[in-house]
């Protein structure tokens, strides 16, 4: 669960439903101003599992970009990026699928790593968020 605004009244939550091999992932955006919380928007992915929502240091229209990662297989992990538009409606801004997904977080910079497998070994491809264009841009991977 992640807050989408400063006072924590708008929140994201993701969870897994069911058990293998019939699992799925749901992502919901809801208003927690009053109990019970009021769902405002929801989406889902059949067959996905191990969801993780995390706030990033990236912003879209001045608000934090949410990253949802989930798996479709041992070597199939997807990351979806969400923001909010001016009316606080969720907007999916990017989706990437790789063998695995990771992050490098420095105080001044966050980099998304999507690992591909041209053969067997994992090969990292790194991306930074460009708020001006509203897109991910591939960048040189930082030394780790």
């Amino acid at each position: 669960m992640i807050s989408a605004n400063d006072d924590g009244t708008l929140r994201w939550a993701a969870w897994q439903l069911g058990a293998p091999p019939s699992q799925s992932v749901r992502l919901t955006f809801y208003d927690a101003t009053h109990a019970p919380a009021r769902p405002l928007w929801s989406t889902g992915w059949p067959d996905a599992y191990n969801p993780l929502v995390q706030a990033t240091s990236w912003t879209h229209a001045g608000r934090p970009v949410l990253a949802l990662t989930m798996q479709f297989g041992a070597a199939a992990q997807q990351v979806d990026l969400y923001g909010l538009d001016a009316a606080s409606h969720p907007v999916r801004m990017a989706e990437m699928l790789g063998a695995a997904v990771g992050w490098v977080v420095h105080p001044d910079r966050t980099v998304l790593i999507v690992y591909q497998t041209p053969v067997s070994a994992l090969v990292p491809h790194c991306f930074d968020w460009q708020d001006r264009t509203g897109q991910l841009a591939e960048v040189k991977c930082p030394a780790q």
Partner: protein
Amino acid sequence: MADDLPRTGIASTYSDSFQPDPSKPGLRTATGEHYSHLGFTAAIMPHARWYVVPMGTLLRLKSNGRCVVVKLNDRGGGNGTMARVLDLSHAAYAHLAGVPVSTVSDRSAGLLTLDDIETTPAGTPLGPVSTT
């Protein structure tokens, strides 16, 4: 979206990192099983091909005159092409490549051409199939 399982294609094997410690279970596959380098399993790819056959389907694969039966129990991210059809467990890859499983690693693994890919009935034993 792909409609059918192709009869031929390219395969490789899982990265070492999906079961870094052979004495411990590997990452969980799409069917909930833990990946094992020593099992006879496969992941289908890319995303457009994930649903052409159900999870649990047994596949009979031929390459280099060798044959192996594997269980499809996973989905893979692929390498951005439709040519790559499967990632095989180390054991299945080793048999088709004609090398000991202990020698299969990220440093040694390559791409295999699968000369034949076909489904085989449930209950078919997994593992190497004699071609003599």
